[in-house]
């Protein structure tokens, strides 16, 4: 199997480092001729880099998409929230047992409208990754989400959720506190709401943990995200008893945005900057914002009851 994202992007990283070094050198160069020469060389390298990015990203295999979707370099929920919301106030606690940092949420302004934001959150530093349980949400995370969904309904706030999790926590403690019930109850709460709900898969849409906050009126996926019933490694292990066949499983599971759109299971794909969201986070956020504005405008035409009933119908027609 399977190179890592870092191995995969190494040639690109080398090229970019070369360009940076040359730029520094060119900046220091006093001789006009030599500087021009260096700038020409930089231009050539930049073209090579762009071609390389094009070649790498123009036909990603499903497994490549898995690697990109999981990449630590990718923007996470709070990165996007900071870019597209104003005045976000994070609220914590399920008012029952504890705090979970793998799901974040709270009210914020989207343009001039108050909304309720809920999203999975992975960590970057080792400490933060541990704090956020590597994005594996615990029952308390889903019960906090339920609390926020209820608040959204009470105060008539449209809900925006960002999905980015390898799956829900499957440990003994999570099981003891009812991770399955928490996921099911969170979905059920979403089906009760009469405010608009928009969900965007921004990275990893990992099975039950993902759909737990994904029962929305509009479901969108970023171009290099994935959405799957099971991790490809798990699928390969169970079906073929060979986890190393993850790349084949990724293809068989059809977990890419394009496949999900073809199957009629999502409403749209949000384009990412050339070479992935991590290469230009402001542009990625701008695209995301535009897509949410669009979805919000669509849903604002619906009555509260229609919002609930059309959400039911959206999932009702899937499969049969």
């Amino acid at each position: 199997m399977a190179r890592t994202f870092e191995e995969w992007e190494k040639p690109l990283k080398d090229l970019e480092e070369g360009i940076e070094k040359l730029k520094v050198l060119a900046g220091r160069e006093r001789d006009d001729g030599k500087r021009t020469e260096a700038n020409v060389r930089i231009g050539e390298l930049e073209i090579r880099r762009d071609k390389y990015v094009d070649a790498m990203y123009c036909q990603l295999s499903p497994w490549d998409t898995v690697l990109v979707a999981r990449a630590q370099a990718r923007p996470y929920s709070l990165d996007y929230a900071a870019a597209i919301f104003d005045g976000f106030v994070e609220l914590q606690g399920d008012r029952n047992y504890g705090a979970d940092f793998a799901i974040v949420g709270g009210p914020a302004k989207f343009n001039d409208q108050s909304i309720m934001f809920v999203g999975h959150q992975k960590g970057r530093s080792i400490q933060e990754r541990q704090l956020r349980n590597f994005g594996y949400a615990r029952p308390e995370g889903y019960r906090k989400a339920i609390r926020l969904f209820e608040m959204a309904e009470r105060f008539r706030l449209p809900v925006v959720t960002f999905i980015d999790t390898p799956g829900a926590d499957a440990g003994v403690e999570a099981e003891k506190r009812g991770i399955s019930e928490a996921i099911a109850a969170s979905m059920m709460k979403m089906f009760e709401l009469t405010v608009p709900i928009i969900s965007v898969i921004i990275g990893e849409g990992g099975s039950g943990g993902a759909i737990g906050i994904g029962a929305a009126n509009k479901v969108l996926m970023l171009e290099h995200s994935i959405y799957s019933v099971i991790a490809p490694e798990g699928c390969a292990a169970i079906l073929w008893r060979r986890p190393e066949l993850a790349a084949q499983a990724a293809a068989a599971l059809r977990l890419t945005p394009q496949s999900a759109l073809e199957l009629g299971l999502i409403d749209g794909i949000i384009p990412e900057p050339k070479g992935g969201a991590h290469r230009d986070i402001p542009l990625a956020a701008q695209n995301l914002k535009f897509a949410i504005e669009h979805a919000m405008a669509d849903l604002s035409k619906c009555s509260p009851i229609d919002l609930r009933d059309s959400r039911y119908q959206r999932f009702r027609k899937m499969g049969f």
Partner: protein
Amino acid sequence: MSSPKHPNDGSFLQCAGCKKILFVAEFEELNKVCPHCGHHHRLGAKRRIDSIFDPESFVELDQDLRSGNPLDFPDYDEKRLAAEEKTGTFDSIICGFAQLDGQRVSVAVADFSFMGGSMGSVAGEKITRTLERAAETKVPAIVFCASGGARMQEGLLSLMQMAKTTAAAQLCRRNHVPYIAVFTDPTMAGVLASYASIADVILAEPKATVGFAGLRVSKQAGVGKVPDDFQTAEFGLASGMIDRIVHRKELKSTLSNLVNLLGSSLEEAVDLPVRKSNHKKTVGASAHG
């Protein structure tokens, strides 16, 4: 809780729990419960229906629903056809209406022997229709769960069945219709994390496996040691996730009593308008928040 082993031509078998040798006739008479240790062996859907509902009262619906291979998943057609051959049904759920001591109920029963009872688009559809029929006709719903989880071979379509069935369970709530789930061995993953866990009442058979992820995954994820009864009905009961563990011989009377207790005032519940969509499917009440 695998099926019992047959050490001979078929008049005896060995209990999967205590390993004692049992008479097949007696074992079948007890609906596959060991007379010595009480081990509950898995029961097929048809046997289950016979053991619970009034004789001849079950009317099967949607039996023609049959899955295709929407993802062209490798080997899926072969596996599904083999399961059809083995079980004589088109998928892992049998559903319809039945009577329980004369009380009408909308029922769905899972059969683990059809691809591990996994939930793809057909199982999801049948569960959804069962719950919708309950909500619309105002009769209680009873669902017997037995599933390893979502069916991988239908990919994201299977995941979406979690949302779809959950929405239908919500419809029962909104329409004041009782929904009772029975966890039999095993009730896992995508099924447990959707319609199964949000029933009004959750019963379980003794020692049934009940859990979110396979034991290996949980062991990897958990830091501490795994308790001996981890992911059993007894663990679920102790954790507050299950209402009662009921011996198979008492399931019928318990269910009948619950249907009577919870369902007898249904006529008095607010009669909510049920809106039909232009689909062949129907959508639920819309006038109540």
